[in-house]
């Protein structure tokens, strides 16, 4: 290995005759964004001023100087990844970096949130995120699954495309009834959230509803009072009682015993005692004593104890109680902040009890109350988060803020942007868009199915009743092997006719401009001098190969060199890390 390597390097240096002129990039032919739309001036938004004030106060309290601003290219890449789930195209990038207006950041965010050109991608990205939140990466992929992943995604896509208020979304997911599979009578994709969570006395329905929508981890209190949070065993069962009228009814393929889909329905619940008008459930304390529970919300609100639907629909009441509570807004604000900034105000974002104090209590409370006042409008929340100064900071640390590192066990102070790896879905979408391969991938459903198939290779289910899972798309060797040699990257680096790289190679741009184009497409920046030098060496090496093969190789040397450069870019830390 070393021998080959050294020999190549030596010869490349001595025969390094390739001269590539370096021209500055022009921006001709790029569509300017529609600047006629009136954009709310950030300075006039009191929320942004307040967020900034609170952040600056915490930086000064901790004696931290915030990092410098991220470059426009870095910030633009960040915004595209976080809003659309992919990197910007070269055109999109240059349209932004060439803007000179003071409010260009707000313009870009507004464009991605409101321009109909981006509605589908925005909805797809949030659908992907929320599918994973609601049913996990493996949900619906299990053998004989009762969850219809595509059904849930259809519901979510529609909800995010219409910017459904978050309280309505939560209520619909908690209270949904209907058929799980698209195309069936009474289809309601939202039922797929709970479709497989009703087994074992609705254990998962209880735990996941509390965790996702209230930011409360109650699963351990099923069997005993929690050793170090304040939730008591009775509260678990009182919350659990809300789900006991609900059934996942199997519907069979005509004439077979194959389950085709499920129908989520509420039915009269007789209780575990003898009086349905007072339908109680029983649970066992660790000392063996048996206690009864009726539906009581976590804040102590009681509802009718009857099990008859005619008297009370328990899940409907739960939906109302959840969306009336402040837990809902605090949990979503924490989750969304974490999604954009890399860390929420608590770790994990969905465990927010008094035992886990938030890093910025005042900011969390403020955002939550403003979000409620803004009628749970997710896009408004996204504007506040993406346009706040912490999200604009560079990930380059300085002496005065390097200590702010949540990896070291410190609570985040957001004095610089924290590196984080792209999610597998972001990588997939980015490669499709960057290589312009997203145009001919069939219908939306076919495209999503292909993506789901690809994603499955990274998911490991632990095989417990709780559906725990993990991913190997975590920076470990299987991921690197996939990036080195996997089908997706092979596809992205193809050079045969009609491929992305063959089109770049055939373009009349100079070689230098071609390399710059690839850098912009992958990293949202131009190459540095050492990077230009090494690209030139690759170019020359491929030319030497071509001369050695007397032109018998089927790939023109230019295309082969671009292939090398593109492969290197996709495999770099800078590409795979949202920075």
């Amino acid at each position, binding site marked *: 290995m070393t021998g080959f390597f050294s020999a190549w390097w030596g010869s490349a240096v001595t025969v390094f005759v390739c001269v590539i002129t370096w021209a500055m990039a022009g921006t001709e032919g790029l569509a300017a964004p529609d600047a006629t739309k009136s954009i709310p001036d950030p300075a006039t938004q009191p929320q942004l001023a307040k967020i900034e004030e609170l952040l600056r106060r915490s930086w000064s309290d901790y004696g931290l100087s915030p990092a410098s601003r991220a470059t426009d290219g870095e910030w633009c890449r960040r915004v595209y990844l976080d809003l659309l789930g992919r990197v910007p195209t070269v055109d999109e990038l240059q349209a932004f970096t060439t803007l000179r207006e003071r409010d260009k950041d707000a313009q870009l965010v507004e464009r991605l949130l409101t321009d109909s050109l981006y509605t589908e991608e925005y909805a797809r990205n949030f659908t992907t995120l929320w599918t994973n939140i609601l049913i996990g990466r493996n949900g619906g992929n299990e053998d004989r699954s009762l969850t219809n992943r595509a059904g849930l995604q259809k519901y979510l896509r529609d909800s995010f495309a219409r910017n459904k208020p978050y309280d309505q979304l939560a209520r619909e997911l908690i209270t949904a009834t209907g058929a799980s599979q698209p195309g069936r009578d009474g289809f309601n994709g939202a039922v797929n959230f709970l479709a497989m969570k009703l087994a074992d006395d609705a254990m998962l329905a209880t735990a996941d509803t509390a965790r996702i929508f209230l930011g409360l981890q109650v699963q351990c209190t099923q069997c005993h009072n929690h050793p170090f949070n304040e939730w008591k065993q009775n509260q678990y069962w009182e919350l659990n009682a809300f789900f006991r009228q609900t059934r996942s009814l199997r519907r069979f393929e005509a004439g077979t015993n194959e389950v085709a889909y499920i129908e989520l329905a509420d039915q009269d619940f007789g209780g575990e005692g003898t009086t349905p008008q007072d339908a109680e459930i029983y649970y066992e304390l660790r000392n063996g004593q048996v206690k009864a529970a009726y539906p009581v919300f976590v804040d102590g609100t009681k509802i009718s104890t009857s099990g008859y639907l005619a008297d009370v629909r328990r899940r409907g009441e739960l939906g109302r109680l959840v969306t009336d509570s402040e837990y809902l807004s605090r949990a979503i604000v924490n989750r969304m902040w974490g999604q954009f900034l890399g860390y929420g105000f608590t770790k994990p974002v969905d465990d927010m009890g008094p035992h886990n104090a938030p890093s910025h209590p005042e900011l969390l409370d403020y955002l939550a109350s403003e979000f409620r006042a803004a009628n749970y409008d997710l896009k408004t929340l996204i504007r506040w988060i993406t346009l706040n100064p912490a999200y604009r900071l560079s990930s380059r640390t300085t002496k005065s803020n390097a200590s702010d590192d949540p990896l070291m066990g410190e*609570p985040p102070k957001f004095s610089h942007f924290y590196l*984080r790896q792209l999610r597998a879905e972001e990588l997939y979408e980015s490669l499709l868009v960057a290589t312009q391969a997203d145009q001919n991938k069939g219908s939306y459903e076919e495209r999503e199915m292909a993506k789901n198939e690809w994603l499955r*290779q990274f998911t490991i289910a632990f095989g417990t009743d709780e559906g725990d899972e*993990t991913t190997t798309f975590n920076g470990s060797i299987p991921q690197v092997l996939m990036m080195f040699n996997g089908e997706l990257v092979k596809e992205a680096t193809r050079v045969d006719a009609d491929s992305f790289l063959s089109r770049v190679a055939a373009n009349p741009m100079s070689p230098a401009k071609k390399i710059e184009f690839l850098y912009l497409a992958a990293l949202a920046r131009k190459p540095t001098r050492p*990077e230009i030098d090494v690209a030139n060496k690759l170019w020359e090496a491929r030319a030497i190969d071509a001369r050695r093969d007397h032109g018998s190789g089927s790939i023109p040397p230019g295309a082969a060199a671009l292939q090398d450069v593109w492969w290197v870019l996709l495999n770099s830390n800078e590409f795979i890390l949202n920075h």
Partner: protein
Amino acid sequence: MVYTPYDMSRRHFMRHLAGAAAWAVPAITLTQSLRAHAEQLRSNRKAAILLWMGGGPSTIDLWDLKPGAATGGPFRPIATTGDAQICEHLPMIAAQMKHLTVVRSMSTREADHQRGRYYMHTGYVPSASVEHPSYGSVIAHELADQRPDLEIPPFVAVGGGSVGPGFLGMSWAPFVVNSDGRVKNLEMGLDRQRVMQRMAALQVLEKGFIDQDRGLAAVDHAKMLDKTLSLMTSKQMEAFKVSQESDAVRERYGNNGFGRGCLMARRLVEAGVSFVEVDLGGWDNHQNIFPTLQDDKLPTLDRAMSALVEDLDQRGMFNDTAIIWMGEFGRTPRINGDSGRDHFARAWSVVVGGAGFQGGKVVGETSDDGASVVSEPYVSQDLMASVCHALGISLDRTFTSRSGRPMKIANSGKVIKDLFA
């Protein structure tokens, strides 16, 4: 001794970057200088195999039967070649029990899958501020000096995800493979010269980004590139190919994922891997537990685990290889309304053997109904300390987490003395 793995590897990495052609040169030089000792090191290098029973196995039905008790279930105990009596549906393991010891006095507090998995893998309860390294990461890290010529990952997880390396960093992460032993995406399909040219170019980008002080993730990425390249070009990858074993051997281990995983574990340890975790899931038996155990789980376990012990013993590897059998917790003595047993951490069993462990014993005791431990109770930390002790790893070892907080190996657990005398 205080040792900071992060600083160490960072220095090591920076040395790698010292020259333009640095990709492979320092590693190879280092390897050559140590190769002279390799044979000697190989002769007494230690390793461990964790058989992870995901879901929480019903140890009252396997290792600590309560015949006659109302909660005892239908299975009968049988005699073994050791002191323990175990489940009648584990006859092949019974023949190997002279090598294995049952600890019947585990008493822990984490009865949630995720928390239990973390706790039993790390010796620590989950924390918001620190991610602790798991067994495999700790042991691979501590035993690395014994295998300087290892080109494949020192910690392999077969058929499951294990738990991550925590503050030790991605270099000590489990390499997760399927039990079929086919590692995906190993071939780049280019000539070696071109691969190395690409790597040299990649090096320029990696270094440029790392030099901008953006944090550990950038450094970790570069390290993983290095490790991946080493693995792609290594002959040691053959160890994953269980298909190279004879039909008779494969049959002995069992023709299923867990059987192949155990066979792969033996091959990997032979090749120099320090820690292999083999996952057998499906123990979360809240319903119909007894037919599930009798018809599915126990025959699979019996065949593979007995084959592994027998095989390691016949190859003279057993005295250097620790075996640990455990899940995240046990299951309730009480049989629930669905003929299942639920999560139970207060009184349950694990099994160990090999390396420095004394075989054939029973340690600890539970009450007649299996609901409580009546001897000295042990926790995850104690088991971890005992495994480290069996492998010759000093319990005085202290890590420094990335926050600078000193952390004793195995969370200051106490060695379970009865496992060694």
